[in-house]
């Protein structure tokens, strides 16, 4: 617990940590203000495909819809912000030489690496919660409350979630989003354990995420065949909480697969760190 406290103190003493929070706030504010200014256009585009079949009343372009819309970009910019800290947390100690001070203390390497991993997860959770809070708060302030309408264009489906049910669905979706993002954090953490500078883990993680996302979305049979083996395929499982009915089995499967990735990546990092000769 003490080591976790120190690690948390260390990462939150660096300005780099706040870049992520600052940029997320900026992206959300900009997106929501632009959406507010272009509300009529957005509403027209949203409704265009199904307004001839449905009569829709009420506040469609509400804070919940805006939140769900912004969350769709989660797997693109949030991983980058996560890697800024997760990719740096171990490698930076090697770069700065402080790893030598750290590892000659009584706490074992196992405890130190575990504390660092927990800190990485804590930061990741904090970042996603921050995104959720700022999206919902600003969204509700600017766009008000209402039912959530999700238009699954690829499945030719529209889902209506009543206003009373949306907060719980959002809570579940953000919890799932945290879980998804921990895989990116675990990957960056592993790379950070292997490297002795921060640039490699950050670029390496982003390269893996981007390549997997691209490969997973190519509309060819060969790439579709690969898709189940890419962790990025399961990272969007948070969206399933905004479906009706909620596909629990699919959610459970994704959560387990991502959990196994987390466990595997951390175990490799754990073994590498414990066996590593510190020559830097």
């Amino acid at each position, binding site marked *: 617990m*003490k*080591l976790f406290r*120190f690690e948390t*103190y*260390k990462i939150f*003493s*660096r300005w780099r940590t706040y870049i992520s929070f600052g940029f997320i706030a900026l992206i959300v504010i900009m997106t929501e203000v632009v959406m507010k200014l272009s509300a009529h256009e957005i509403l027209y585009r949203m409704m265009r495909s199904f307004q001839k079949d449905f009569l829709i009343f009420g506040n469609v372009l509400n804070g919940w819809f805006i939140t769900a819309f912004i969350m769709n970009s989660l797997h693109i910019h949030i991983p980058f912000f996560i890697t800024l800290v997760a990719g740096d947390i171990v490698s930076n100690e090697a770069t*700065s*030489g*402080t790893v*030598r*001070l*750290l*590892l*000659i*203390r*009584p*706490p*074992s390497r196992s405890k130190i690496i575990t504390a660092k991993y927990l800190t990485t997860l804590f930061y990741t959770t904090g970042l996603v919660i921050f995104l959720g809070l700022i999206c919902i708060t600003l969204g509700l302030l600017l766009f008000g409350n209402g039912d959530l309408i999700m238009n699954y264009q690829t499945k030719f489906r529209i889902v209506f979630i009543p206003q009373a049910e949306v907060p719980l669905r959002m809570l579940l979706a953000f919890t799932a989003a945290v879980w998804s993002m921990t895989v990116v954090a675990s990957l960056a953490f592993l790379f950070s354990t292997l490297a002795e500078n921060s640039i490699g883990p950050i670029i390496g993680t982003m390269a893996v995420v981007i390549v997997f996302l691209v490969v997973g979305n190519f509309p060819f049979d060969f790439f579709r065949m690969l898709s189940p083996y890419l962790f990025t395929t399961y990272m969007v499982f948070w969206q399933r909480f905004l479906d009706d009915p909620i596909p629990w089995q699919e959610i459970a499967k994704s959560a387990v697969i991502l959990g196994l990735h987390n466990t595997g990546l951390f175990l490799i990092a754990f073994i590498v760190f414990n*066996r590593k*000769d*510190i*020559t830097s």
Partner: protein
Amino acid sequence: MEAYSSKEVVLRTHGLSKKFGKRWAAKNLNLEVYRGDVFCFLGPNGAGKSTTIRMILTLLTPSAGSIEIFGMDLHKHRRAVLSQVCGIVEKPDFYLYLSAYKNLEILGSMTRRVQKDEIMEALEVVGLTSRAFEKVKTFSHGMKQRLGIAQALLTKPQLIILDEPTTGLDPQGMKEVRGLIKKLASEGGMTVFLSSHLLSEVELVATRMAVINRGELIAQGFVSELLGKESMEYSVQVSPLDSAVELLAKLTWVEVLAAEDGKIELRVEPGHASELNRFLVSNQIEVLSFYPHRTLEDFFLKITEGTSEI
């Protein structure tokens, strides 16, 4: 010196070896450090000093051999051993974005609970009280070195391991750090293990020493014994030169090697250095300067009888 046989061995290595690829960085080292020693691990750059220190501080896993500290096997009792040991490996690196105080608090608390006044006390010993709450990134190398010693003091260790503690320091900084090392051993009752490639440093601070070259132990023992075995060469600047040379020729324990430009190069048998100075002064010879002439390379060549490459 016989009393040493009854002294507690604080650090002992048995056949300690480390291999990187095909190269042995340390080979079959058998070291013994006694309680209260200022033990100097001497060797040229690349001799294996840092590798050995890293193994002793668990940063490297030995390829063979074992390390015993306070009678406990380091591998089996890592936590118990390291709670009584502190060290600085190579240069003292700290979290530059944190203050000196916060660095000490974090690093000290990893060994034991430390109070604010203990941190301030440690900073006071090394003369950094006024900079306690400034970020370490504003510190000079010498200040970081002193902060390194402060963090070592904070945990109240019984054994302090310092890897080339005066490297990169200016003469004043070197003097301060050497003074601190002596103080730790004499007043703090700590055992100090330090590495150096400076023979003069060994003479100034150490009680016992081990000499390493190419990963192998060449010699180990008391500094006075190891260094005192050899005749010392000196450069003496005197006036008048001719009279001094004439007088010195009469002494059986002095061999004049060269005399020119008011300077005499001579070799003196062990234990006669101060006597030589007195002799010249009492014979109305003005001694303008008097300094030893021995280098680490000379020392190595002598103790290895020219068989070792440096």
